[in-house]
């Protein structure tokens, strides 16, 4: 038979249990709006019962709090992270796609399309007195192309900065996770529940998952191991030498982990390539500069090394065009991605970790490079934006090139830019077709601005020939109207037989009212040109290629269609369609992902969230229980009073 003191201690235990429960409740209330917090429950259990010898059986000894656990569904966490990764990808790419769309400013009254239609209209009605407005409108078109090009390049630069800070963030997050992981393990080993630390760790993992897809494995003592989901080459998933696919491994053969729970276990970090420049005199060697851990604040983190991007192509002697193309493609892929796998110190390593890219070797091989190519997430989205910007820039370049080549060809009537001589040969009688373009309409301003003489004129001979040979390098960024024409618009060739004379003033065959050549240029808006062939990967490089590789034709009176091509407007509209569709898809995806994420977050909240009403009810409940326990003690006190003071008078 238990004594009164036993009841006393039952009361005390009860009060302690309720007090602890109240503590947990108040912790819940105070963290009701804490991000990542999961509500906790004090697990109250009965204490070990007392067996009473007289046959009554077991008597309870009260309650105790055995554990404070957090209420969490780890499967929902898994799903949320998955969708956060996808969401991160679309959010980052949408942000920049909408910027690109804003740069294009179509459909609108001030965009490229409008300038182009003005340009062609001007040619339609050109007379001697309107030539200067034609030249100014042409310059405006070129300027619009130039500024669009520059703005797209700026987008790429901004994206690079974001990639850099993302890499730094990721490394920072990984370090924090690692730290928490250690603490959690320690606390768990000592038999305690690290609830709040685990919440914090989960929150960091959620944040990390927006950057790229992560794999989280539960390990002993509540610790975890974190890995990254990367692009895998399905044909050869174990090839660690492929710089753009498959997970790297560590020298000990273990697969790469970002957070390793084992003490002293190998871990990886990421580094950011800030710059990549060709080594002069070589077509395949490049100098790469990267910052360890993406930390650009400290210059000590800067590492520079030389790499041969064509080391596996078997280049012997002179590089072939095909090999050059491969190298250029690799260069483009690297500059679009910019994230390197690195060891725990942040120094980049090869796929198997055997080669450390610390710049100690004079030249590294292509396979020594290991780029981080995530399957999804913000980093993937940023790479995609880089690729998109490059694609749009390439298309704009093709458009500028097509416009320049075709206008120059029609304007001069000369299919190949040719070589000019100084002094200009006198017109022969009868005149013969010119073999060189003495007055290119559109020029490459990069080269032209160095070759104008003091009066802004391109003199025939060396200066003009430099500009003509740079015509094949015309891009949307450097297309410009020949200053010689801007200074004296009356030089513009508009007459049918102008192709037989170096300058239109020499033309004795046509009167000034003859405008057939101008009409041909005006009609160019309806002409089909193979712009795809003019892109970076295309085969058409110079003016003459329109007529030899492409299927356009040029005669004195007509510019013939390339039936495999499209009109310049259609081509541009396709670019806008492309951008619009990408942006629309990204927006829709974000919306869909947001809905899904919302649903999962609701589920998470439903399980782990703090309900104030519930906690208030608990509060009242525990308060009452506490009071009741106190009552038990005071009752026992009264009973003891009876025993101590009341039995003996």
């Amino acid at each position, binding site marked *: 038979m238990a004594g009164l003191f036993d009841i006393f201690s039952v009361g005390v235990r009860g009060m302690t249990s309720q007090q602890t429960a109240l503590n947990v409740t108040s912790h819940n209330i105070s963290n009701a*709006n804490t991000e990542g917090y999961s509500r906790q429950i004090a697990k109250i259990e009965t204490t070990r019962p007392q067996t009473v010898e007289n046959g009554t059986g077991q008597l309870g000894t009260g309650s105790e709090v055995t554990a404070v656990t957090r209420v969490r569904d780890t499967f929902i966490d898994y799903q949320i992270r998955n969708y956060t990764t996808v969401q991160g990808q679309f959010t980052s790419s949408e942000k920049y796609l909408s910027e690109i769309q804003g740069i294009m400013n*179509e459909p609108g009254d001030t965009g490229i399309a409008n300038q182009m239609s003005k340009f062609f209209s001007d040619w339609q009605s050109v007379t001697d007195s309107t030539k200067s407005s034609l030249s100014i409108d042409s310059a405006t078109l070129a300027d619009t192309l130039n500024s669009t090009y520059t703005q797209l390049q700026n987008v790429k630069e901004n994206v690079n900065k974001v990639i850099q800070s993302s890499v730094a963030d990721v490394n920072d997050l990984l370090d924090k996770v690692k730290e928490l992981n250690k603490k959690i393990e320690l606390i768990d080993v000592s038999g305690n529940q690290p609830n709040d630390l685990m919440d914090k760790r989960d929150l960091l993992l959620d944040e990390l998952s927006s950057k790229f897809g992560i794999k989280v494995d539960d390990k002993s003592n509540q610790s975890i191991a974190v890995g990254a989901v990367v692009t895998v080459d399905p044909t050869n998933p174990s090839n660690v030498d492929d710089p753009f696919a498959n997970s790297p491994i560590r020298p000990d053969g273990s697969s790469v982990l970002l957070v390793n729970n084992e003490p002293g276990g190998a871990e990886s970090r990421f580094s950011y390539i800030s710059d990549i420049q060709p080594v002069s005199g070589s077509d395949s060697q490049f100098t790469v500069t990267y910052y360890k851990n993406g930390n650009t604040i400290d210059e000590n983190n800067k590492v520079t090394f030389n790499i041969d991007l064509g080391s596996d192509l078997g280049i012997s002697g002179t590089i072939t065009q095909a090999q050059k193309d491969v190298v250029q493609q690799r260069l483009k892929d690297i500059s679009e991605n910019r994230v390197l796998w690195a060891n725990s110190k942040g120094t980049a390593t090869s796929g198997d970790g055997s080669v450390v890219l610390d710049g100690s070797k004079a030249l590294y091989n292509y396979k020594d490079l290991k780029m981080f190519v995530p399957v999804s997430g913000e980093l993937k989205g940023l790479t995609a934006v880089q690729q998109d910007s490059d694609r749009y820039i390439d298309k704009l370049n093709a458009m500028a090139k097509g416009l320049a080549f075709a206008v120059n060809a029609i304007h001069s009537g000369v299919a190949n830019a040719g070589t000019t001589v100084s002094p200009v040969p006198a017109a022969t009688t009868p005149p013969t077709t010119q073999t060189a373009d003495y007055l290119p309409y559109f020029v490459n301003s990069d080269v032209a601005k160095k070759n104008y003489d003091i009066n802004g004129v391109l003199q025939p001979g060396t200066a003009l020939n430099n500009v003509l040979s740079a015509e094949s390098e015309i891009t949307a960024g450097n297309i410009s109207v020949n200053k010689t024409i801007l200074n004296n618009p009356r030089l513009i060739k508009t007459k049918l037989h102008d192709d037989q004379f170096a300058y239109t003033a020499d033309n004795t065959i*046509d009167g000034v009212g*003859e405008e057939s050549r101008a009409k041909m240029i*005006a009609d160019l*808006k309806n002409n089909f040109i193979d712009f795809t062939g003019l892109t970076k990967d295309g085969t058409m490089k110079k003016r003459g290629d329109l007529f030899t590789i492409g299927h356009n034709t040029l005669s004195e009176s007509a510019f013939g269609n390339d039936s495999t091509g499209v009109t310049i407007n259609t081509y541009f509209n396709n670019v806008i369609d492309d951008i619009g569709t990408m942006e*629309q898809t990204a927006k829709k995806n974000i919306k869909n992902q947001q809905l899904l994420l919302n649903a999962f977050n609701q589920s998470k909240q439903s399980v782990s969230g703090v309900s104030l009403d519930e906690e208030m009810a608990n509060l009242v409940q525990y308060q009452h229980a506490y009071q009741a326990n106190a009552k038990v003690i005071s009752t026992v006190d009264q009973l003891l009073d009876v025993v101590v003071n009341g039995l003996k008078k």
Partner: protein
Amino acid sequence: MRITNKMLSDNFLSDMRTNMENLQTIQKQMATQKEINEASDDPTKAVRIMALTENINANVQYNTNINEATNFLDTTDTALGQVGDVLKRVNDLLIQSGNGGYTEQERSAIKDELNVKVGELSQILNTNFDGRYVFGGTKVDVKPMTTMKSDIYSPGPTYKNGAAKPCAAAASLDLTAVPLLSANTNYSVKLTVDATGVVTGATAQSAVNGGTLASTPVTASAPDGSGNVTLDLGNGVKLNVPKDIANVTGDVMTFTCNSEANTRLVYNSDNPASPELTDPAKLNQLDQKLYVEVSQGVTLDYNVSASDVLKFTNDKGQSIDLRNVLTKIMNHLDGNTDDGSSPDTAATGKLSTTDKQDIQDTISNLLSIRAKVGAKQNRMDSAKDRNGTENQNLTDVLSKTQDIDITQKTIDYSTAQTVYTAALQTSARIIQPSLLDYLK
């Protein structure tokens, strides 16, 4: 499902965001009056809008082209009408001159009027529209026509050295590049004579207005059997000098360049020293056509050149040039042969017969040209109609694609606003109360 306070407020926030987005979209569409503001709103429609805008821009340009050409044609037509009036007057004058009772003086009066008419014809053919000479072919920057007097050079008297008395014999002139001398000017050369009376050379004494005669002494050609020589004074001026024209060295011979003659209609070279255009390349420019694009791929020529009016083939297959016809008429009025070189008694008779016929042929040629111009004007008019219709259609389609339906958007707006207000009201009531309100 367990519902927590945060779930309610999260839900409220996300729904509110959706509502605000809807309102923003409608607001933007209302403000811009456009359904599509960015390509991503609807890429297909956006591209269609761009293509339509491009088509409309092109059409507006075609409209400008058509208007320009129409005005040009109107000007041409008016000018051709004036040419017709002049030719009719010429015709009337020819009928009058055929009257056998007309005296030389009366015919001279007719010739005076004809001279004026030729100048008028030149002026009409130089009609200018918007800085362009409408009858100039592609040579729109230079007047196509001008008039010239046919210069006549007559040898004057020869004077003895110092004496103002004519010598006996007169020299004759052989001039091959006459326009180089100034009209209505007397030129004089000082002759050198040998002992036998044969002229051996000369120095130009006065070479007014341009000094086109050789200023250095010239040597005479070797004398022929009778002692006559030729003096080449340069620039195509040659003097045939008979023997014994001068007595001593220093005798002066004069000759005159007169421009009292008939007015000729010629193509303008824009060179005052040699007003008649002879360069075949430039003459060719006068015949070139001007073209205008009135819709995609449809190009029309719209000009009439001066040579269309002047040169033609009549119904008998003879090719006629009005310039020659007019010169011929002048010569006939002077009582000379066609080229005016010698008197011709039958000349006046030709005035009312062949000459009149030629003028009438020219008039009928002019009428056929005017008919063609009329046809072109009609074509322009119908092109303009088509252009207008097309423009209207395109604008219509563009409006249907791009513009908002205001009624619908207004209704959408009030719906969205109602939803927004309702959501606010409900949420405000749901979020506010908690168990705390009821615990005492």
